[in-house]
């Protein structure tokens, strides 16, 4: 009996590596600390009522933000581990298989569990406020999306202490990810972690598409909508069409592993290349999913801090919608070297270059917006200014990669690594950080400290170039990606080592930048400049017309919109002495909190965990739980309520009293 338990534990838990034991201890200590603090301060019911069961988009946004920052930390630690291993030739810091696991989880976490939730955080925190709406179209679904994402992310993260991490690359290409080459549970964690959170992502895409089409304030025509909302619309469209492809592809891989099917195996008619083809049909649109909202953020930030209307609004809208369609026609550029016909490569090379055009249009529009504007260099603006040159270079190297014959040289070299980090960090991370700094006062009611923020920005920005510029050169020198070590001959004679060392220094500078941001947040919570006006930056769009943080119902009275930059118009009218119409409150219809999303997501987690270990006694009850939750929701009719007028009056008096 005891032997059996020991035997089980040694395969169930990951053993052997001191780094993992360290992680085990820190996870245990953190969990104990959280439980202790919640119990000691009697916060369990508060947590349940105010956060876990909430359907309020603002709170869900905050939870997404916290989760994404935690994942940024984990993905960042993975990156630093890799850079440490590569700093010098013949390093013995990580074992080969551990290195494989680290680069796999780094990629998957950064895209799916860091970039996506940070994007959803901004969707949730901003879009309903920009549209003048009281919540998203489907608040219940919104909560479900969040909890599914979190459970998927937790399942994925669990793999490194229980069962073993996936180690077949961030897209898990077969045949390496098939049972024949990865018999462990790592790939199962990959599949189920992504599948469960993927349902949430798809639902969020649908939710925001409907919110934007149906919930805009009266008078806000589509072409009067703020550009961030437009970017969310285009991103949501891509989500709706791209995520089902991912789901199906991973489901087929799961059937291969679970039921012995042969979609992507090497034998019996399977074709691993088909997986590569399918996964990039999602994978390429995915990068536009995450970058389009960043474009939206820059448009808001540039207009606000240049004190000008955005230059070329129509062309901005048109280029975003064009990107969202053309992004579906470029996927094969990820595998030019696969050996498809020359015609295929030509088509996808050209379509890839074509998609650079609308992106270039947007860059010029931002520059023209700043041209002769009254620019104030605030933190959001700083990140925007850092983004423009970085993204321009990243875009240019992208066009280099798009040249199919030349790609045979660049393919899977560090040149590619440098390119996509430049567009993903320079574009997506800088963009989301700009957005977080910009809307932070709206969400939390205080600004983030400027001095610490500038330190963080410069560390990130300089660290970025120090880290990735040498990697372009390393790519040309023949260093391929996923290489876990190199000999002192290539290291010193071919000159890899100095460049790798410089790159590692850059990575740690970015790590330091992140620490500054953590410091900045914790400092500003106590001492940050409070936002009493609700409009700390001189904003142009509706979210700045209400107090910060926004009351639960967002808008006490539905705003009437007549132009674009609706709040700017109101402020201009006030300056001219035009009195706003007298305020008359009406009861506000709101959705009720619900525990079903959380319970259902936990059931999904149980089912996923069961499938990972092939434990049907666990997977089937989990799925039954999911079905019961679906039924329970279908038959619950008491899902909404009205906030009475006197309560609105009291809340508004308290908030506005502080405001005026």
């Amino acid at each position: 009996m005891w032997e059996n338990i020991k035997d089980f534990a040694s395969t169930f838990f990951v053993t052997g590596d001191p780094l993992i034991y360290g992680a085990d201890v820190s996870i245990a200590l953190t969990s104990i600390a959280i439980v202790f603090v919640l119990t000691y301060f009697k916060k369990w019911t508060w947590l349940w009522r105010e956060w876990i069961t909430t359907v309020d988009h603002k709170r869900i946004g905050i939870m997404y933000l916290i989760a994404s920052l935690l994942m940024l930390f984990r993905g960042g630690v993975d990156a630093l581990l890799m850079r440490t291993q590569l700093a010098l030739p013949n390093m013995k810091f990580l074992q080969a298989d551990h290195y494989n696991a680290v680069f796999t989880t780094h990629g998957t976490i950064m895209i799916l569990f860091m970039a996506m939730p940070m994007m959803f955080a901004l969707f949730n925190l901003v879009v309903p406020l920009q549209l003048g709406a009281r919540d998203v179209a489907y608040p219940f679904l919104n909560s479900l999306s969040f909890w599914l994402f979190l459970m998927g992310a937790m399942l994925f993260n669990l793999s490194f202490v229980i069962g073993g991490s996936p180690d077949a690359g961030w897209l898990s290409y077969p045949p390496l990810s098939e049972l024949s080459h990865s018999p462990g549970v790592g790939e199962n964690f990959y599949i189920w972690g992504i599948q469960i959170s993927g349902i949430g992502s798809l639902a969020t895409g649908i939710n925001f598409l409907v919110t934007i089409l149906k919930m805009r304030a009266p008078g806000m025509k589509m072409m009067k909508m703020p550009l961030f909302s437009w970017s969310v619309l285009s991103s949501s469209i891509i989500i709706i069409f791209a995520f089902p492809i991912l789901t199906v592809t991973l489901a087929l891989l799961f059937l291969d592993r679970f039921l012995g099917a042969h979609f992507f195996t090497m034998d019996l008619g399977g074709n691993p290349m088909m997986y590569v083809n399918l996964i990039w049909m999602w994978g390429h649109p995915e990068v536009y999913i995450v970058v389009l909202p960043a474009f939206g953020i820059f448009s808001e930030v540039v207009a606000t801090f240049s004190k000008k209307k955005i230059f070329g609004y129509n062309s901005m809208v048109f280029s975003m919608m064009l990107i969202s369609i053309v992004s579906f026609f470029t996927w094969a550029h990820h595998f030019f070297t696969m050996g498809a016909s020359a015609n295929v490569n030509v088509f996808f090379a050209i379509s890839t270059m074509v998609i650079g055009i609308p992106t270039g249009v947007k860059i010029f529009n931002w520059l023209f917006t700043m041209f002769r504007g009254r620019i104030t260099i605030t933190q959001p603006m700083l990140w925007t200014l850092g983004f423009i040159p970085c993204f321009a270079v990243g875009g240019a190297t992208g066009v280099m990669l798009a040249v199919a014959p030349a790609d045979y040289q660049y393919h899977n070299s560090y040149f590619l690594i440098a390119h996509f980090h430049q567009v993903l960090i320079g574009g997506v991370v800088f963009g989301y950080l700009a957005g977080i700094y910009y809307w932070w006062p709206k969400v939390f009611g205080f600004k983030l400290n400027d001095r610490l923020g500038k330190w963080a920005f410069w560390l990130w920005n300089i660290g970025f170039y120090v880290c990735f510029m040498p990697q372009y050169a390393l790519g040309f020198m023949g260093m391929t990606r996923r290489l876990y070590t190199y000999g002192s001959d290539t290291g010193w004679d071919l000159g890899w080592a100095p460049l790798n060392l410089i790159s590692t220094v850059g990575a740690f500078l970015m790590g330091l930048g992140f620490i500054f941001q953590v410091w900045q947040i914790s400092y500003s919570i106590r001492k940050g400049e409070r936002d009493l006006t609700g409009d700390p930056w001189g904003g142009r769009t509706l979210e700045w017309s209400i107090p910060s943080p926004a009351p639960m119902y967002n808008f006490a009275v539905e705003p009437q919109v007549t132009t674009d930059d609706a709040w700017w118009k109101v402020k201009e009218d006030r300056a001219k002495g035009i009195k706003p119409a007298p305020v008359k409150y009406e009861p506000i219809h709101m959705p009720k909190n619900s525990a079903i999303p959380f319970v259902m997501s936990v059931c999904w987690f149980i089912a996923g965990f069961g499938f990972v270990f092939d434990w049907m006694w666990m997977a089937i009850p989990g799925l039954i739980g999911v079905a019961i939750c679906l039924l329970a929701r279908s038959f619950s009719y008491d899902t909404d309520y009205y906030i009475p007028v006197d309560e609105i009056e009291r809340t508004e008096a308290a908030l506005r009293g502080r405001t005026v």
Partner: protein
Amino acid sequence: MSQHNTGHEHASGESHGSLKSYVIGFIFSIVLTIIPLVIVMNGLLNKTQTVITIMIMAVLQLIVQLFFFMHIREGEKPRWNVMTLIVGIIIVLTIVGGSIWIMSFNSTVQ
């Protein structure tokens, strides 16, 4: 106000087709699933015929889903559902056609 709450109110109030249409749709979709299954499990047709049958069943299934469950005919103007459907069809054609085109190198290789 009223326009704003459509999202919540639709859930309980308005009718989205009758029980009868749901049952018919359900039966159709089951039948369309069973036909290819039976053909494949019992090896009733040769390979080309099987593939063509499966594809036809898949397209019919799509139509059943759209009409009986997705309510493609309902909805007020502007016809967002029709616009989305058109984009969806373009994407589906891209996926299928593109995959065949890209993967056709396989036949020359083997």
